């Protein structure tokens, strides 16, 4: 019994390490886009990723063929959605530390844009994940795209560290 448990935990650690080595970079980039932090100074994104990966590790034995990347991304997204609600309030009033490429967007716009266009999640899946109607997801995604490509004039932080696309 003890031996079986030990070998199972060793196998879990090995598999999980391989998974993290392959997926952490991309997930951290996604998390940094979500929190709109600077790629070199992203404590919130790191914390988000740490929590999501810890959650994946804890249910590693019960994944039953489910993609661990999918599971981690799902947890990351829902956790960010919940955290953004608490941190920014329902109105999304402050974006004080936002400096990244998506700094102009609201947390919800960033979340949907990253899920749809960076991670390539299908519209209906993103809608189901966030508990929103599909049309709303499409509308928010369109609005975010427009804001990103045609930034409104005004004293907004300049996107740093990313190519600014010509519109």
């Amino acid at each position, binding site marked *: 019994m003890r031996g079986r448990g030990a070998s199972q935990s060793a196998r879990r650690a090995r598999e999980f390490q391989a998974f*993290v080595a392959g997926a952490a970079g991309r997930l*951290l980039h996604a998390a*940094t886009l979500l929190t709109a932090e600077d790629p070199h100074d992203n404590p919130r994104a790191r914390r988000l990723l*740490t929590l999501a990966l*810890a959650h994946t*590790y804890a249910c590693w034995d019960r994944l039953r063929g489910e993609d661990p990347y999918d599971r981690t991304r799902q947890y990351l997204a829902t956790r960010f959605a919940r955290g953004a609600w608490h941190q920014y309030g329902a109105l999304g009033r402050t974006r004080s530390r936002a400096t990244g490429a998506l700094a102009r967007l609201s947390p919800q716009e960033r979340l949907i844009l990253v899920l749809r266009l*960076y991670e390539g999640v299908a519209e209906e899946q993103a809608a189901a994940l966030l508990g929103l109607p599909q049309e709303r997801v499409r509308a928010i995604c369109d609005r975010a795209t427009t804001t990103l*490509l045609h930034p409104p004039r005004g004293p907004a932080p300049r996107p740093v560290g990313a190519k600014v696309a010509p*519109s």
Partner: protein
Amino acid sequence: MNQPRREALVRQILEGGPASVPPELYADVMRRGGRMLRRRQAARRLMWLLLFAATVAFVVWALVAQPWVEPPSETTPPLDW
């Protein structure tokens, strides 16, 4: 500008090399994840233990009380000679 073109432009903005993952992140993940796992295992064990204890208690009670046996009647039939 049509939809696919706009999406391609946005993808270009979003793309970027994979972020460099700080080495202490993995240790932190293992620490937290291990703690969550242990806590879940302990909770599951406790649940099974409670279930087992409840089953034993029920069986003992049933054997002692024997609720399926009809209780002796408390009224006596009238004594009319």
